[in-house]
């Protein structure tokens, strides 16, 4: 089992009271998602919480699933494929990750 100390390290020293539990800040999750999505950005509009991943970006469904695998390992959660299929926006993906972390 991970200790709270290890989690703090994993969270990269971000000032966030939640680092003592399995919780992570929403901003941190969104920032991590954006790192993965940046290569698929088109035009001037920055990636934000309301970005519709499959529609506003040039990412295909397989690449979305591969990104999800990376995020799963980064945040130590598993997101079932049926749940991934229901996720449309960056916000929804971030909330799913945070909810799963809180449950485990």
């Amino acid at each position, binding site marked *: 089992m991970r200790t709270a100390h290890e989690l703090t390290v994993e969270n990269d020293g971000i000032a966030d009271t939640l680092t003592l539990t399995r919780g992570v800040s929403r901003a941190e999750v969104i920032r991590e998602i954006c790192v993965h999505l940046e290569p698929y950005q088109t035009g001037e509009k920055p990636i934000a919480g309301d970005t519709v991943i499959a529609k506003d970006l040039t990412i*295909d469904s*397989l690449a979305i699933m591969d990104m999800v*695998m990376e995020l799963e390992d980064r945040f130590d959660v*598993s997101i079932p494929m049926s749940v991934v299929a229901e996720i449309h926006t960056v916000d929804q993906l971030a909330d799913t990750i945070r909810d799963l972390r809180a449950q485990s």
Partner: protein
Amino acid sequence: MGLFDRHAGLLDAYRDVRTTGYDPFQIRMERVLSPTKAIINGRETLLVGTNNYFGLTFDRSCMDAAIEAIEAEGTGTTGSRIANGSYTEHVALEREIAEFYGKKHCMVFTTGYQANLGVISTLAGPDDFLLIDADSHASIYDACKMTQAEVVRFKHNDPSSLEARLRRLGDKPGNRVVVLEGIYSMLGDRAPLGDFVNVCKKYGAYVLIDEAHSLGALGDHGRGLCEVAGVIDDCHFIVGTFSKTLGAIGGYCVSDDPDFDILRVTVRAYMFTASLPPSIVASVRQALRVVKARPELRTQLWDNVATLYDGLKAQGFTLGPEHGPVVGVHLPDRMTAIGFWRAMLDAGIYVNVAVPPATPNGVSLLRCSLCAVHTKEQLDHMVEVMTGIGRQFGVLPDKQLRAAGAR
């Protein structure tokens, strides 16, 4: 929105492909001459993309068995096993495949696709967990769409990635079923099966392995990767196909589970489709005898793999990670792959072209599959042709240009 509007992106991509002159997805084999030759676009063409690993489609003994079966029992069964009954030969085929693996039970399906679709979607039910390799075949992904189990993907050929996902399930109730393939169909790479089995044992997970591309090709008896890794007893379910090494069509699943036969009344892909016709059952039974009796075919296949793989590698092509009956040649992008494929067809060599979204990690590939009865001369010629085309397309450095530049 029209019915086909959602395919607009795919239609555009498909249009691009067809502007090259040929449609790789609608190639017409005007006449098939042998396991390695066909007439395509009016010319004799070398076939290096048909999964015909042992070349048994024209084996005299297999053809005779099929012809005799048609004379004796007709052309088709006209219905499913549960409606029209099993023929004696269906049951005999199942017994022989079970014996081949030393397993107690076998179910035969009308295609390999249906074997995966039916077994995987039914084995794991509500509250169970299916864990699949990210590079799984479409039949496995489609089974995941049908199952009521929770599905999680792990990184391709990465036992630690599987372990992390099994660990996260913690003490949640429900069966864990892990789905692997012996040889992956696009790049010809093998699963690290021993390591995967150890992880599965640690977490009490069932193992299902699809040996579609490894039946005949791997193992001293041709049983597949499970034989090479020495883990047949640890693979709870082994799935395979008759449409590659065995030269016909159909699929199977073997298992030692005492209640395995319940799948005959629960797997819809078995229950609600017509069973294999007598000719296919007969040729497959004979092909299995040939696989057992002629291990030299396996040796010839791997000699041919070495000729093509090592030949292409020496010329500088980027290939799949290891020798395999499938040799995947990486090309930089979709249009180069299509153009390269077309140039090869013009030169009289047929391979498969594989482009996103059908490929892992968005790669574009020429997918070559070897046959035991390819000759070394044919494959040496193929390496020469591909090297020439590779230089024309700038995939390989042009030696003369480089020499001129150095002067």
